[in-house]
């Protein structure tokens, strides 16, 4: 099972209800329970660590979409490309 799958499913399936109840607060969700609601991510992180230690918990605002990141160097595999062995093409990975 992917990380925090249960928590993410809970957040998505209860989004409207959570929005009504907590508005734009950062929620700390463990399993199918909201264990805290905070104004800032910093407060949420601090209180999540106090309550749950280093256990995995979902911290997200109900209205937030999935976090999306673009890192071409990672996704195109060009971090380990060797310019000295370039073929002149694009996206070539030396496989070093």
């Amino acid at each position, binding site marked *: 099972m992917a990380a925090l799958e249960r928590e993410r499913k809970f957040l998505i399936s209860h989004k409207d209800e959570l929005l009504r109840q907590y508005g734009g607060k950062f929620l700390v969700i463990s399993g199918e329970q909201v264990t805290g609601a905070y104004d800032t991510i910093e407060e949420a992180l601090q209180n999540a660590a106090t309550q749950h230690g280093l256990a995995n918990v979902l911290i997200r605002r109900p209205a937030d979409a999935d976090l999306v990141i673009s*890192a071409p160097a990672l996704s195109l595999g060009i971090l380990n490309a060797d310019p000295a062995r370039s073929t002149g093409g694009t996206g070539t990975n030396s496989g070093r």
Partner: protein
Amino acid sequence: MPILHVQLAAQGQTADGKPAQLAPAVALQQRGPVVPVVVTIEQNAGKGLLAQGKPLPSPKTGLALIDTGATGTCSDEQSAQELGLPIIDVAKLTSASHADQDCNVYPAQITIQNLGLSINSPHTIGATLAPQGLLILLGRDLLAGCTLFYNGQAGQFTLSI
């Protein structure tokens, strides 16, 4: 305002296989703008642990590549797990050529050693960086508060925050 000025040094090989010092411009082109960093748990999460009398994860040291192409900051996934950082969300790593990939999100604190400056990175994306000798990719979310000068001809870069 803390300022970090770096000129990279690296060794290569001559045509007959003897070790030779690379010119700074070549070293910077091949290695990229890298800085030594220390990574541990995000400061506020650390405060929460300490309030409960729990120990903080031991920090890890390594190199961070300043990556203006990355929207977000990434940490080596294996290192984040070894640090014991909690997963607090899952992000999608997008690519034009591959299907979106789910990545763990960790709350980290990144200290740029030579700058003596710690930056909280509450949404640090786990990715495979160790094979490239990297611990961190410093993305545009953290660079948003920085000024970066890249002097390719001199093999130097300057970062200020």
